[in-house]
Protein backbone atom coordinates (compact mmCIF):
# COMPACT_ATOMS: atom_id res chain seq x y z
CA UNK A 1 0.00 0.00 0.00
CA UNK A 2 1.40 3.34 -1.03
CA UNK A 3 -1.01 6.26 -0.97
CA UNK A 4 0.79 9.60 -1.00
CA UNK A 5 -0.25 13.18 -1.67
CA UNK A 6 1.71 16.39 -1.31
CA UNK A 7 1.57 20.11 -1.95
CA UNK A 8 5.02 21.04 -3.27
CA UNK A 9 6.93 24.18 -4.20
CA UNK A 10 9.33 22.63 -6.72
CA UNK A 11 9.05 21.06 -10.16
CA UNK A 12 7.02 17.82 -10.32
CA UNK A 13 8.96 14.76 -11.50
CA UNK A 14 6.32 12.61 -13.22
CA UNK A 15 8.77 9.78 -13.90
CA UNK A 16 9.51 9.56 -10.19
CA UNK A 17 5.80 9.32 -9.41
CA UNK A 18 5.40 6.58 -12.01
CA UNK A 19 8.22 4.67 -10.37
CA UNK A 20 6.67 5.22 -6.96
CA UNK A 21 3.42 3.39 -7.79
CA UNK A 22 5.17 0.65 -9.75
CA UNK A 23 4.33 -2.72 -8.24
CA UNK A 24 4.04 -6.08 -9.98
CA UNK A 25 0.51 -6.54 -8.65
CA UNK A 26 -0.56 -3.76 -11.01
CA UNK A 27 -1.25 -4.23 -14.69
CA UNK A 28 -2.32 -0.66 -15.44
CA UNK A 29 -1.00 2.76 -14.53
CA UNK A 30 -2.79 5.99 -15.46
CA UNK A 31 -1.02 9.32 -15.10
CA UNK A 32 -2.66 12.71 -15.40
CA UNK A 33 -0.52 15.82 -15.72
CA UNK A 34 -1.96 19.34 -15.72
CA UNK A 35 0.15 22.04 -17.35
CA UNK A 36 0.15 25.79 -17.71
CA UNK A 37 -1.44 26.43 -21.09
CA UNK A 38 -0.44 29.29 -23.38
CA UNK A 39 -3.99 30.44 -23.98
CA UNK A 40 -6.87 30.57 -21.53
CA UNK A 41 -10.25 32.01 -22.39
CA UNK A 42 -8.75 33.54 -25.52
CA UNK A 43 -5.97 35.43 -23.71
CA UNK A 44 -2.25 34.77 -24.21
CA UNK A 45 -0.83 33.56 -20.90
CA UNK A 46 2.76 33.96 -19.73
CA UNK A 47 2.56 32.09 -16.44
CA UNK A 48 0.48 31.27 -13.40
CA UNK A 49 1.03 31.98 -9.74
CA UNK A 50 -0.55 29.23 -7.63
CA UNK A 51 -1.35 29.93 -4.01
CA UNK A 52 -3.18 27.88 -1.40
CA UNK A 53 -4.62 27.62 2.04
CA UNK A 54 -1.68 25.31 2.54
CA UNK A 55 -2.59 23.35 5.62
CA UNK A 56 -6.12 22.73 4.45
CA UNK A 57 -5.05 21.93 0.89
CA UNK A 58 -2.76 19.22 2.21
CA UNK A 59 -5.55 17.84 4.32
CA UNK A 60 -8.13 17.91 1.52
CA UNK A 61 -5.71 16.35 -0.94
CA UNK A 62 -5.00 13.54 1.52
CA UNK A 63 -8.76 13.11 2.00
CA UNK A 64 -9.29 12.88 -1.77
CA UNK A 65 -6.51 10.28 -2.04
CA UNK A 66 -8.00 8.26 0.76
CA UNK A 67 -11.54 8.44 -0.62
CA UNK A 68 -10.19 7.37 -3.99
CA UNK A 69 -8.35 4.42 -2.48
CA UNK A 70 -11.52 3.13 -0.82
CA UNK A 71 -13.89 3.88 -3.69
CA UNK A 72 -11.78 2.27 -6.43
CA UNK A 73 -9.69 -0.24 -4.49
CA UNK A 74 -6.49 1.61 -5.30
CA UNK A 75 -3.43 0.56 -3.29
CA UNK A 76 -0.84 2.62 -5.15
CA UNK A 77 -1.24 6.27 -5.94
CA UNK A 78 0.79 9.44 -5.81
CA UNK A 79 -0.45 13.01 -6.20
CA UNK A 80 1.54 16.22 -6.20
CA UNK A 81 0.14 19.72 -6.63
CA UNK A 82 2.64 22.48 -7.13
CA UNK A 83 2.44 26.04 -5.75
CA UNK A 84 4.37 29.18 -6.69
CA UNK A 85 5.10 30.75 -10.05
CA UNK A 86 4.90 28.41 -13.02
CA UNK A 87 5.84 29.21 -16.58
CA UNK A 88 4.24 27.91 -19.77
CA UNK A 89 4.19 24.13 -20.06
CA UNK A 90 5.20 23.46 -16.47
CA UNK A 91 3.22 20.84 -14.55
CA UNK A 92 0.92 22.18 -11.85
CA UNK A 93 -0.38 18.76 -10.86
CA UNK A 94 0.45 15.11 -11.46
CA UNK A 95 -1.79 12.23 -10.43
CA UNK A 96 -0.47 8.70 -10.86
CA UNK A 97 -2.69 5.73 -10.08
CA UNK A 98 -1.96 2.03 -10.50
CA UNK A 99 -4.33 -0.92 -10.30
CA UNK A 100 -4.47 -4.53 -11.43
CA UNK A 101 -6.94 -3.49 -14.16
CA UNK A 102 -7.32 -0.46 -16.38
CA UNK A 103 -10.94 0.52 -15.78
CA UNK A 104 -10.53 1.35 -12.06
CA UNK A 105 -7.21 3.06 -12.79
CA UNK A 106 -8.84 5.44 -15.30
CA UNK A 107 -11.86 6.05 -13.10
CA UNK A 108 -9.77 6.71 -10.01
CA UNK A 109 -7.56 9.14 -11.90
CA UNK A 110 -10.53 11.09 -13.19
CA UNK A 111 -12.16 11.08 -9.75
CA UNK A 112 -9.07 12.67 -8.23
CA UNK A 113 -8.69 15.49 -10.74
CA UNK A 114 -12.41 16.32 -10.59
CA UNK A 115 -12.35 16.44 -6.78
CA UNK A 116 -9.16 18.52 -6.83
CA UNK A 117 -10.80 21.05 -9.14
CA UNK A 118 -13.95 21.06 -7.04
CA UNK A 119 -12.66 21.38 -3.52
CA UNK A 120 -8.92 21.91 -3.13
CA UNK A 121 -8.38 25.39 -1.61
CA UNK A 122 -5.92 26.53 -4.26
CA UNK A 123 -6.10 29.68 -6.37
CA UNK A 124 -4.33 30.87 -9.44
CA UNK A 125 -3.43 34.26 -10.74
CA UNK A 126 -2.76 34.22 -14.45
CA UNK A 127 -0.25 36.58 -16.00
CA UNK A 128 -0.89 37.76 -19.57
CA UNK A 129 1.39 38.98 -22.34
CA UNK A 130 0.07 42.54 -21.91
CA UNK A 131 1.55 42.57 -18.40
CA UNK A 132 -1.76 42.34 -16.59
CA UNK A 133 -2.79 39.51 -14.29
CA UNK A 134 -6.05 38.15 -12.94
CA UNK A 135 -7.39 35.70 -10.42
CA UNK A 136 -8.76 32.79 -12.35
CA UNK A 137 -11.97 31.22 -11.43
CA UNK A 138 -11.11 28.09 -13.30
CA UNK A 139 -13.46 25.21 -13.40
CA UNK A 140 -15.53 24.39 -10.37
CA UNK A 141 -16.83 27.64 -8.99
CA UNK A 142 -17.84 26.45 -5.54
CA UNK A 143 -21.37 27.59 -4.84
CA UNK A 144 -22.72 28.43 -1.44
CA UNK A 145 -23.75 25.11 0.01
CA UNK A 146 -20.99 23.20 -1.73
CA UNK A 147 -19.60 22.40 1.70
CA UNK A 148 -22.46 20.02 2.36
CA UNK A 149 -21.96 18.17 -0.89
CA UNK A 150 -18.35 17.60 0.03
CA UNK A 151 -19.28 15.82 3.16
CA UNK A 152 -21.94 13.47 1.89
Amino acid at each position, binding site marked *: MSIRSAIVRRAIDVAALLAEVQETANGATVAFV*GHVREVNDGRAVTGIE*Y*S*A*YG*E*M*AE*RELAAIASECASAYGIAHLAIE*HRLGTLTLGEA*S*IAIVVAHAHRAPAYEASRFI*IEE*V*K*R*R*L*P*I*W*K*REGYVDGSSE*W*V*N*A*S*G*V*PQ*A*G*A*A*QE*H*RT
Partner: protein
Amino acid sequence: MTVTALLFASYAEALGSDRLELAFPGSATVGEVVAQLRALPGGAALPPSPLVAVNLTYARADQRVANGDEVAIIPPVAGG
Protein backbone atom coordinates in the same frame (compact mmCIF):
# COMPACT_ATOMS: atom_id res chain seq x y z
CA MET B 1 -14.83 36.05 21.97
CA THR B 2 -12.27 36.38 19.19
CA VAL B 3 -11.81 34.41 15.98
CA THR B 4 -9.13 34.63 13.32
CA ALA B 5 -10.47 35.18 9.82
CA LEU B 6 -8.21 33.97 7.01
CA LEU B 7 -8.54 35.55 3.58
CA PHE B 8 -7.10 34.33 0.30
CA ALA B 9 -6.56 35.37 -3.29
CA SER B 10 -9.08 37.98 -4.49
CA TYR B 11 -10.68 38.24 -1.03
CA ALA B 12 -7.35 39.04 0.61
CA GLU B 13 -6.71 41.68 -2.03
CA ALA B 14 -10.15 43.24 -1.58
CA LEU B 15 -9.84 43.48 2.20
CA GLY B 16 -6.14 44.38 2.09
CA SER B 17 -5.19 41.61 4.49
CA ASP B 18 -4.95 37.84 4.65
CA ARG B 19 -5.59 37.57 8.37
CA LEU B 20 -7.93 39.55 10.63
CA GLU B 21 -8.82 39.16 14.29
CA LEU B 22 -12.55 39.66 14.81
CA ALA B 23 -14.21 40.17 18.19
CA PHE B 24 -17.81 39.25 19.09
CA PRO B 25 -19.63 40.22 22.28
CA GLY B 26 -21.21 36.79 22.77
CA SER B 27 -21.24 33.67 20.61
CA ALA B 28 -21.29 33.83 16.81
CA THR B 29 -22.01 31.72 13.76
CA VAL B 30 -20.04 31.36 10.56
CA GLY B 31 -22.62 33.59 8.89
CA GLU B 32 -22.07 36.32 11.48
CA VAL B 33 -18.31 36.18 10.95
CA VAL B 34 -18.90 36.62 7.22
CA ALA B 35 -21.30 39.52 7.88
CA GLN B 36 -18.71 41.29 10.00
CA LEU B 37 -16.10 40.88 7.25
CA ARG B 38 -18.51 42.16 4.61
CA ALA B 39 -19.09 45.31 6.67
CA LEU B 40 -15.37 46.17 6.50
CA PRO B 41 -13.90 48.42 3.78
CA GLY B 42 -13.57 46.24 0.65
CA GLY B 43 -15.72 43.57 2.27
CA ALA B 44 -18.39 43.85 -0.43
CA ALA B 45 -16.11 41.67 -2.58
CA LEU B 46 -17.17 38.72 -0.42
CA PRO B 47 -20.43 37.05 -1.45
CA PRO B 48 -23.09 36.83 1.28
CA SER B 49 -22.59 33.06 1.53
CA PRO B 50 -19.00 32.23 0.61
CA LEU B 51 -17.46 28.83 1.14
CA VAL B 52 -16.07 28.77 4.69
CA ALA B 53 -13.80 26.37 6.54
CA VAL B 54 -13.58 26.37 10.33
CA ASN B 55 -10.35 24.89 11.65
CA LEU B 56 -9.59 23.31 8.25
CA THR B 57 -12.99 21.72 7.66
CA TYR B 58 -15.70 23.08 5.39
CA ALA B 59 -18.56 24.45 7.49
CA ARG B 60 -22.17 25.60 7.07
CA ALA B 61 -23.27 29.18 7.61
CA ASP B 62 -25.22 28.28 10.76
CA GLN B 63 -22.29 26.52 12.42
CA ARG B 64 -21.28 28.12 15.73
CA VAL B 65 -17.68 29.30 16.08
CA ALA B 66 -15.70 29.27 19.32
CA ASN B 67 -13.07 31.54 20.78
CA GLY B 68 -9.77 31.07 18.95
CA ASP B 69 -11.30 29.34 15.92
CA GLU B 70 -9.65 29.81 12.55
CA VAL B 71 -12.36 30.83 10.09
CA ALA B 72 -11.18 30.71 6.48
CA ILE B 73 -13.17 32.37 3.73
CA ILE B 74 -12.57 30.33 0.59
CA PRO B 75 -12.83 32.08 -2.79
CA PRO B 76 -13.89 29.99 -5.77
CA VAL B 77 -11.16 27.37 -5.99
CA ALA B 78 -9.00 26.95 -9.08
CA GLY B 79 -6.61 24.11 -8.35
CA GLY B 80 -5.41 21.45 -10.76
